[in-house]
């Protein structure tokens, strides 16, 4: 199922990631993300560098942990946990980290991934979307609406009850 390999985490594919190669490709992604950030916010390379370097380091360390830690958590899970840990108030240096990554716009970092995403769509994915037809499109929208709304309703009720 080659076209399911791309996008987020896949337990079976992830251990094959070659760390050195991925680290280089991550650098390319960070550079493109940095350009996106410059165009959207006007924050130049020198000013954005510490923040981008921090995000880069979190990403690489997360990939390495996902590869070598014996239980399964996708690399994005590790990356998140590291990024959370270094920004919790009271952790040494956390204020500086928050200040530096604050110069990076989160939306700008998502733009490159979606450009790759549009270009990566395979003939098979277009074919599936086409042959599944309008019923699947309606169901897909219901699924997304239902998942979002279900979460929001339960979250909202819980917040009301517990404050």
């Amino acid at each position: 199922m080659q076209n399911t390999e791309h996008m987020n985490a896949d337990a079976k594919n992830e251990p094959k990631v070659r760390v050195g190669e991925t680290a280089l490709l991550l650098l390319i992604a960070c550079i493109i993300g940095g350009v996106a950030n410059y165009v959207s916010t006007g924050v130049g390379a020198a000013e954005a560098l510490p923040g981008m370097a921090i995000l880069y380091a979190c990403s690489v360390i997360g990939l390495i942990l996902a590869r070598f830690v014996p239980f399964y958590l996708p690399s994005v899970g590790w990356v998140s946990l590291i990024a959370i840990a270094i920004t919790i108030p009271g952790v040494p240096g956390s204020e500086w980290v928050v200040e530096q990554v604050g110069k990076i716009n989160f939306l700008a970092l998502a733009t490159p991934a979606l450009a790759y995403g549009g270009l990566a769509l395979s003939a098979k994915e277009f074919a599936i979307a086409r042959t599944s037809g309008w019923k699947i499109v309606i169901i897909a929208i219901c699924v997304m609406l239902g998942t979002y709304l279900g979460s929001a309703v339960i979250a909202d009720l819980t917040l009301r009850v517990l404050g």
Partner: protein
Amino acid sequence: MPKSGVFGPGQLALHGLVLAIVIIAEIIGIIRIPIGIAAIVLLPMLYAFAAGIVLNPNITRITSSVLTPNVQKFAGTMITIAITPFVAKFGTTVGPQIEAIIDAGPALILQEIGNLGTVLIAFPIAVYVLRMGRETVGAVYSIDREPNLALVAEKYGLDSPEGAGVMGVYATGTLIGTFVFAVIPVLIHALGLFDIRALAMSCGVGSGSMLAACTGALVTAEPENKDLILGLAGASNVLTYATGLYVGMFLALPLTQWLFRKARPDLY
């Protein structure tokens, strides 16, 4: 390194093309389209995705000499890599909000079960309105991102009716998910019924791009709560990484299957 073929001319051309798309998308910037009480927010990532589709070699011939199937497959790898710094950035919004997140802890955990809301809404429509067959089970049991896809593949095989259902929603979600998640939250927000924290943490239910679109839209609607929105959405997304597969495996998929057998015993 050259033998792995990830730094060839086609790959470099891909990065160049992505860079050009990204620059143009960011120059256009965020556009707000007011519709009555709400405003639909168009984000640069949406233009970037649309531009990628327009330039996709399966759509246009212009790029097909450069973007060979191999380069396209590599582009698939690059999605995972390019989203990682975004995920890291999102994590850094969680730490500073840790107190607000712990305060909202029970809601954050319980809303994972709210993901079953897809069964409530999509299941009856699939079975009773659209009269769909066994593909219903794969289609409606979850938001059908990668871990959910892997689960159905393992249990039924992707060539089964259930597999066709999960693949259909997966492919459709890949094509329109970003747009849907830019629109739904602002419409629900405009109802004024929900705590902004609830809407924010529900942004974490799907893929990275859905998270980005959803939070981007909410932040544009309530810029004064930016840090809180990002922190809660990020925390919820991390929780989904950890629990999503298990909720699907032990709760959502068995439940959907049971419901379907009750509703359409003729198909078994």
